[in-house]
C-alpha cells in the first residue's frame, strides 16, 4: 500500500521549491537591472544613491583598469551615483537584454553599430539631453561625431578613436636597394618598391614579402577611400563606386602577380602566430592602426622602421579611416538621468583625459582633439602621422545595414582575390544586396 504522508510532503516541497525558485529568478533580474538601493549606506542621511548598471565589452584587464583610472574618480565626484561595471562579451547579451526590457543603464558599443541599433529603436535619443546640457559636438572629431548620429539625432557619445597608416621596414628597404628614408607616396611607388622585396624560400613559399594589400588593416574600405572612392553619396550606399572598383582591381592585381595561394600561405602562417606580421621583420610594407605602436615596448623590433600615410594614386590626397567605441543608453534603461551623468563624465573631457593618461595608453588617440593636444600627443612623431590625418578621417556609412555592408564587402574582397568573379560585378552585387536589405528596413513600421 502507498504511504500517503511522505508523498504529499514531497510534492508540497517540490511545489514550494518551484515557486521559490521562479520568485528568486525575477528578484535577481530586477536587482541586475540596478534598482536604486535606497536602503543602502546612504539611507540614514535621506539622500538616495542610484546604482548605474554599466556594461563593457572590452576584455582583458580593461574592466579593472577602467575602474581604477576613471570610474573611481567619477564615484568620488558623484557621491550619489554608484557604478556597477560588468564585462559582457560581444553584443548578443545586450541585444537580448534590450529585447527583454531589462537592459543596463549604460553600454559600451562599437560606434559602427550605433546606426543600425538606433534604426531598430533600441537606443535612447540623446539629442534633448545634449541640447539641455550644452554638449558641444565640436569637441569631437567630425567623423567620430557623425558616426554616433543617425537621422540627425545623436544616439551615443563617442569615446576613443583610431586611424590607419602605412608602416615600412627600413631594413628590408635597404636590403632591396631602396632609400629607407623615402617611403612610397603613390600606389605606383608602393607597387614598384614592394616588388623588389618579395623573397622565396624553399618549397616555393615566401620567406619575406614586400606588401600584401589585404593584410591587417588593408581592406576594400581602406583602398576605396585612398583611390578617391565613396561608400555613401547623397543618402545612397555606393559600394560599387568606380573608384572602389579600381581599388579592388588593384588589390586583385597583387593576388594575380604573386599567386594568391602562396600569399595566403604566408599571411595565414603569420596571422596564426598572434604576432603582428610587421614586427616579425619579414614584411616590407603593411597598413595598420596606431594601436600597434603600443606593441613596441614588448616587441622591441631589431630592425629600423617608420610610418607614413597610406599611399594614394598620384595626385590624390592622403586618407585614413577611423573607427572606435561609444557609450549609449539602451532603450528601457531604468536610470536615465544617472546614466547620462556617467556618460557625460566618461565620454566627456574629464573621463577621456583620465583614461588617456594611463601609463600604457600612450599611443591611443582619443575622440577629443583638445585632450590629444593637452597630452601633447603630436610630440610623438609616429603618432603625429595618424593625428594629422584625423580631421579628414573617413568613417563607414551610418546605416541600418552597416554590418551587412561590411560583411558583404569582406566577402567579395575575399572572392575577388581568390579569382572568383570580377571586381565590378562583385561590387554591383554588394550594392544590390545592401539596397535590398535597406528597402526592407525602411518599410514604415508601427
Amino acid at each position, binding site marked *: 500500500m502507498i504511504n500517503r504522508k511522505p508523498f504529499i510532503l514531497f510534492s508540497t516541497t517540490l511545489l514550494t521549491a518551484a515557486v521559490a525558485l521562479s520568485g528568486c529568478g525575477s528578484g535577481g533580474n530586477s536587482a541586475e537591472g540596478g534598482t536604486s538601493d535606497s536602503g543602502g549606506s546612504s539611507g540614514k542621511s535621506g539622500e538616495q544613491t542610484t546604482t548605474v548598471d554599466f556594461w563593457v565589452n572590452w576584455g582583458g584587464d580593461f574592466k579593472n583598469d577602467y575602474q581604477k583610472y576613471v570610474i573611481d574618480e567619477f564615484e568620488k565626484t558623484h557621491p550619489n551615483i554608484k557604478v556597477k561595471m560588468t564585462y559582457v562579451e560581444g553584443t548578443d547579451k545586450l541585444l537580448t537584454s534590450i529585447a527583454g526590457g531589462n537592459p543596463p543603464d549604460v553600454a559600451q558599443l562599437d560606434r559602427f553599430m550605433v546606426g543600425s541599433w538606433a534604426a*531598430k*529603436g533600441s537606443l535612447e535619443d540623446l539629442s534633448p539631453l545634449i541640447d539641455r546640457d550644452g554638449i558641444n559636438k565640436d569637441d569631437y572629431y567630425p567623423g567620430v561625431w557623425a558616426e554616433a548620429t543617425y537621422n540627425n539625432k545623436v544616439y551615443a557619445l563617442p569615446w576613443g578613436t583610431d586611424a590607419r597608416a602605412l608602416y615600412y621596414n627600413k631594413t628590408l628597404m635597404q636590403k632591396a636597394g631602396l632609400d629607407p628614408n623615402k617611403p612610397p607616396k603613390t600606389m605606383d611607388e608602393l607597387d614598384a618598391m614592394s616588388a623588389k622585396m618579395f623573397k622565396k624560400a624553399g618549397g616555393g*613559399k615566401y620567406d619575406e614579402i614586400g606588401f600584401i594589400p589585404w593584410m591587417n588593416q588593408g581592406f576594400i574600405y581602406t583602398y576605396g577611400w585612398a583611390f578617391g572612392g565613396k561608400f555613401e553619396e547623397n543618402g545612397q550606399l555606393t559600394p560599387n563606386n568606380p573608384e572602389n572598383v579600381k581599388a579592388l582591381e588593384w588589390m586583385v592585381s597583387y593576388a594575380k602577380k604573386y599567386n594568391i595561394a602562396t600569399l595566403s600561405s*604566408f*599571411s595565414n*602562417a603569420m596571422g*596564426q602566430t598572434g604576432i603582428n606580421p610587421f614586427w616579425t621583420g619579414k614584411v616590407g610594407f603593411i597598413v595598420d592602426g596606431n594601436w600597434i605602436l603600443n606593441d613596441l615596448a614588448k616587441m622591441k623590433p631589431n630592425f629600423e622602421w617608420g610610418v607614413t600615410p597610406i599611399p594614394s594614386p598620384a595626385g590624390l590626397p592622403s586618407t585614413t579611416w577611423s573607427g572606435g567605441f561609444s557609450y549609449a543608453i539602451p532603450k528601457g534603461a531604468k536610470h536615465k538621468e544617472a546614466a547620462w551623468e556617467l556618460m557625460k563624465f566618461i565620454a566627456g573631457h574629464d573621463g577621456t583625459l583620465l583614461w588617456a593618461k594611463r601609463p600604457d595608453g600612450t599611443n591611443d588617440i582619443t575622440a577629443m582633439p583638445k585632450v590629444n593636444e593637452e597630452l601633447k600627443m603630436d610630440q610623438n612623431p609616429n603618432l603625429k602621422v595618424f593625428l594629422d590625418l584625423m580631421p579628414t578621417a573617413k568613417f563607414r556609412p551610418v546605416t541600418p545595414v552597416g554590418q551587412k555592408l561590411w560583411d558583404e564587402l569582406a*566577402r567579395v574582397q575575399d572572392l575577388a582575390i*581568390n579569382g572568383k568573379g570580377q571586381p565590378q560585378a562583385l561590387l554591383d552585387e554588394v550594392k544590390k544586396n545592401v539596397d535590398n536589405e535597406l528597402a526592407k528596413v525602411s518599410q514604415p513600421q508601427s
Partner: protein
Amino acid sequence: MAANDNVAGTVKTVRAAKRGSSSYERKMSLYGFLFALPWILGILIFSAYPLVMSIYYSFTTYSILDPGQWVGGGNYKDLMADGTFWISIYNTLYYTFISVPLNILVGVGLALMLNTKIRGQGIYRTIFFLPSLVPAVATTIIWLWLLNPQFGLVNYWLEKIGISGPGWLGDEHWSKPSLILMGVWGVGQAIVIYLAGLQDIPQDYYDAAEVDGAGTALKLRHITLPLMTPVIFFNLIMGTIGAMQNFVLPYTLTNGTGSPANSLTMYVMYLYQNAFNYLKMGYASAMAWILFLIVALLTVLIFITQKRWVHYQGKE
C-alpha cells in the same frame, strides 16, 4: 521497490480517474501530474514555445528588438534568391556527405583494431578517446597550428618526404578537406559505441565459422560487419544530424567569415550571422525550418535504405 510501486500506482489511478472513480484516486492522479509538472513546464517553456514561435517568426521581419511585420512567405522567397544561402547549403552537404562516411570508416576501423586482444589495450583505447574530451575550441586552435602552412607540423612532415604541403585552411580548395580532417579527430565518442557493438557479438558465431574454416576476412565480412550494422546505422543518423549543424569549428576557424572565398560558410554559421549580426531573426527562423526539413528528409532516406543493409539479431 517502493518507487516502482508508486509509479505503477499512479498509472493505475490515472486510468481510474478517467473512469471517474473515487476522490482518493483522483487525488493520486493529481500527484502524478504534479510530479511530472517541472518536466512538462520545462518542455513547454524552453522547447515547445520557442519552436512554435519560430514558425511564426519565420513569416515576419522579427529582429529581436522589434516585433517586425508579417511578410508571409517573404523570407523563404528571399532565401531562394540569396547566393550565400545556397553556398552554405552546398558547403554543409559537401561536409556531411564526406565527413560522415569517413568518420564511420575510420571509427569502425579503429574500433576493430582496439578490439584485438593485445597488451596495453586499455591504454590504446584511452588514447583514441582522449581527443573527444578536448573542447571544440581548443581542438580548433591545436589544428590551426598543426595545419599552419609554413610553421605547421603537418607540412613539416610532408616536406620531410618531399611533398610541398598545401595552404590547408587558407586555400579554398583545401579548406573543406581540412575541416573534415579535423572532424575525424573527434571520432573517439563513436569508437566507444562501436566497441560496445563489437563486444555484443557472441563468440559462438566466430567459433562456428572457424570450425567451417573461415578466415579473418570472411569472419569480418559475414559476421562482424553485418552484426555491427545497427550500431553503424545509429552513428550514421546521429552523425548526419550533427554534421548538418556543424558550427563551432568553422566559426572559430574563420571568425564567422567563412573565408577563404566563402568555402567555409556553413549553414548554421550563416543562420547565426543573420540572427545576431544582421538582427534578422525572422529570416534566421526561416533558415532553421528549412534546415529541419533537410535533416528530416535525409533521416527518412536513411531509414528507407535501412531494410537493405541493417541486420537486427533475432529478426529474419
